[in-house]
């Protein structure tokens, strides 16, 4: 079986994004740390588990982005993935998921993956579009927000359980090839083993420079970015932890909550 896991590298959520001069996008300074999107880490783990069940399975990783995303791909190889592909794309403005999914679908065209796994969304932008769009462009079925999956090799199908709103669930069967966007809670991602860390040192990540001219498409764009507004009063308590604690007690006491 041939599996592809699409991963995104995301900035640490406690880093502060700085809005550019044109107010059309935001970036992070050199000190910001990046990690693998949490949902995608679950997808990698799920792929590795399938490989443990089904012999001769190959797990590929692909990520789109600037040079730094290589470290995220490497981390997946350290977790146990077989091969890494880097779709090099250095952008510091909004890149529509429509374009991302085009580039990744283009990459998939001649690879004949039986299963493509992604996270249900990215932690930073939360669009949740790239996965389903890749599937649509490849003409394969997809399921989003999957919290359980099982491959049926004889039937060439995958049985998935989707999480619906309010915690309801439904199960369904998709014919392979298919794309599954996994939800957190599906598994606990493993830590890299020493042997895989050693192996990753000698594993080349294949870099692919985009061939699709993105300017040919006119998808949605981000026109303006602003600080978020406040939906509530948002009073900030000041002082030492003890002073803040006293102030909070007082405020809650006045509201008869204490």
């Amino acid at each position: 079986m041939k599996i592809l896991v699409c991963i995104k590298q995301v900035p640490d959520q406690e880093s502060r994004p700085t809005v550019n001069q044109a107010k059309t996008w935001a970036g992070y300074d050199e000190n910001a740390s990046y990690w693998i999107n949490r949902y995608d880490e679950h997808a990698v783990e799920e792929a590795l588990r399938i490989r443990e069940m089904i012999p001769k399975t190959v797990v590929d990783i692909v990520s789109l982005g600037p040079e730094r995303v290589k470290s995220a791909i490497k981390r997946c190889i350290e977790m146990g993935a077989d091969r890494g592909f880097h779709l090099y794309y250095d952008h510091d403005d909004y890149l529509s998921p429509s374009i991302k999914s085009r580039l990744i679908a283009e990459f998939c065209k001649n690879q004949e993956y039986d299963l493509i796994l992604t996270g249900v969304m990215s932690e930073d932008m939360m669009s949740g579009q790239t996965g389903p769009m890749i599937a649509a462009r490849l003409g394969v079925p997809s399921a989003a927000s999957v919290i359980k999956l099982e491959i049926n090799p004889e039937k060439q199908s995958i049985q998935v359980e989707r999480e619906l709103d309010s915690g309801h669930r439904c199960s369904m069967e998709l014919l392979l090839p298919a794309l599954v966007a996994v939800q957190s809670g599906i598994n606990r991602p493993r830590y890299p083993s020493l042997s895989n860390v050693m192996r990753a040192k000698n594993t080349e990540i294949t870099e692919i420079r985009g061939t699709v001219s993105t300017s040919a498409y006119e998808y949605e764009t981000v026109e303006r970015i602003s600080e978020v507004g406040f939906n509530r009063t948002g009073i900030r308590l000041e002082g030492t932890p003890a002073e803040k604690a006293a102030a909070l007690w007082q405020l809650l006491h006045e509201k008869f909550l204490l």
Partner: protein
Amino acid sequence: MNHSIMIMCEQSEGRILPVTYELIFCASLIADRYDSGITVVLPGNIAGADSISGADLLVINSPGLAEYTCEGWEKAALLAAEQIMPDIIIIAHTSTGYDYAPRVAALLEGGCITSVAGIEFIPDGIRYRRSGFHGKLDLLYKAGKPPLVITVLPGAFPANVQQAEPGTISYINAAIDPVFTSNLQFMIPDQSNTELEHAEVIIAAGKGIGKAENLQMIREMASCFSRSAIAGSRVACDNGWIEYNAQVGLTGKKVAPLLYVACGISGSMQHIVGMKDSKTVVSINRDPDVAIFRHSDICIVEELEKFIPEFIREAEKHTVKGKKQIPIY
């Protein structure tokens, strides 16, 4: 510019879900300004269609649309789009909406904006608002070449129930038959949690508590209040610190206590929908820019391990010996 707006009706078991009226409200804001046509597409024969006013209806009849499949809904949307030729397609951002909406956009070669929280009008057209960058920034989007598919967050617009002119009804008889997908089972796991439902004060733990041992501190904080319970964000539940039946949010519980204290929770919109109706919200977080602060009445920028023990000490100072409050969890 006039627009042609297509809305995908959100349904469950053959009934229209209220969020559909919110989508109609959203569309009517555009229609009022630009004199645009609105068509609501009903995948399958859905009861209560006569409750829809101010829009035309297009019913797509097909045995394959008896229940939701990504494939079926995608085909229905494409079929409808062929007839309506919309430049804006509005879908609810629900577990069905986000499953198929991006696919429809890709197949129509249109742009897509998900979890739209609002729309704005500027002289040269419509802008769509959603948050990004871990919910820290507001982004205003502009459509590219039509069509544009948007998914709208439930609750972002009021439900339109006012009576407007009823529109026309047309039907398409189609042979939509999902070939790649078959539904197996629908499940409602037992997630009841009466403590949480009755609690007046909820102390909620997020990933920021860092480790299971820190739950003790959360419990102690809860015991400072009467009729209190503890709850968690999804990550806190995924990590096994809090039971899933105490998860607050989109895929968990919707709660509205007198006081909600978010401890180390970032405030993603999936969490916010579960607690936004709380009377008072207090958030403790070490990140001064964290999204949860915009949904809070009182914000405390602090490490949990420093602040919570101080708060417990403070509360104990005020408690008369032997009259300590009894939590209900």
